[in-house]
């Protein structure tokens, strides 16, 4: 056992215990850590956004390189501050209109291609799947699954007859999918705990190598 001599490691360990103390019950130490986390995150975000965003993208081209066109995004950006001045708070709509309109316009064709076109292509039963019996079988099972699950989300008609059968089959696929997601969620949450335990046992207490 080689307990760390680093003050910073001790601070990190104490804060870890502070957050973990909430498991017992809510307490002032946890609340202190929680508020410290919020404050530090905000400060870090401001510094990073300034040095990696505003300064190189706006301050340098506008004020150091003298590119006047950059006044437009500056004015639009400053409109965000109007949110806190009731009389002119409506001015915030201008930067929002620009970013939302631009973002939506860009996203529609990109998402259509990524999540619709390519996904339909992936679902189609192509000649390549006939190469092996197992590939063919899994492709058919997948194809049926996609169609039936889509039918489950089809609410324009009452689920009766063939539609009922399809939607019930879709439920089976959905349950297996949610089960898989749950299994992976367990894995994710446990990994985060193990990561903290590794820090405590290795970096702080030196119990493990």
């Amino acid at each position: 056992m080689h307990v760390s001599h680093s003050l910073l490691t001790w601070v990190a360990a104490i804060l870890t215990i502070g957050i973990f103390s909430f498991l017992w019950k809510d307490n002032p130490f946890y609340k202190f850590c929680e508020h410290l986390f919020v404050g530090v995150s905000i400060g870090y975000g401001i510094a990073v956004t300034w040095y990696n965003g505003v300064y190189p993208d706006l301050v340098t081209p506008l004020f150091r390189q003298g590119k006047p066109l950059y006044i437009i995004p500056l004015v639009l950006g400053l409109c965000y501050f109007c949110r806190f001045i009731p009389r002119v708070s409506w001015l915030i709509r201008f930067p929002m209109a620009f970013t939302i309109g631009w973002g939506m316009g860009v996203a529609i064709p990109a998402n259509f291609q990524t999540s619709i076109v390519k996904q339909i292509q992936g679902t189609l039963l192509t000649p390549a799947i006939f190469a092996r019996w197992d590939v063919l079988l899994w492709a058919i099972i997948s194809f049926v699954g996609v169609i039936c699950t889509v039918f489950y989300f089809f609410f324009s008609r009452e689920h009766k007859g063939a539609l009922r059968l399809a939607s019930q089959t879709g439920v089976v696929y959905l349950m297996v999918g949610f089960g898989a997601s749950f299994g992976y969620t367990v894995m994710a949450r446990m990994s985060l705990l193990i990561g903290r335990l590794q820090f405590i046992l290795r970096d702080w207490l030196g119990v493990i190598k």
Partner: protein
Amino acid sequence: MKRNVPLAICLGFGIVMMVQFFVPHPISVGFYDLTTKWVRIVSAFALVLGVGSFLMYHTEKLRRRRTGWLYSIVALVAAAVSTVVGLAWGVKQTSPLQNYIFTPLLVPLNASMFAILAFYMASAAYRAFRARTKESALLLIAAFIVMLGMVPLGAAIWHRLPDLAEWILSVPNMAAKRAITFGVALGGIATALKVILGIERGWLGGGKQ
């Protein structure tokens, strides 16, 4: 002016950016390049909204001496100190922001906050994960197979278990998630079109103006 101009900006940029996706003409590319820079700058200013809300919430709590106002001091001081340190020394590897704020404070607080979810998940699984119906039993079985198959212990129990887990993920899970992806993408595109065309106006905020 207060509503129609932002709606027109949103419509204009939405349509232009959609069309631009399919037009590789130099003028189109030049416009796209310029507006891409502007969007990045304006997006950086959006941080103002988050920081403004944070400051208003905590200063108000402090002013009215609401329960837990002392913790608001912790949050405000932490934000102020990390902002000042970040802006004064920058974000370089040698900066105190990285060495005295990010590593010993932000990392353990953020990581521990998520690590405690493992305990809540264990407790919730124990209390609420019941195989009451055939569907929930199916979910449970799929979850167990994925949980065991994805870790080394699963392979030690039965060497084909990882393959079975991988099959669940690649075939029925994939089919269900693909159908959900279709739904999400179509819903997203429909909403985006409604925003661009001014049918969905929630982003303009409340009020008659």
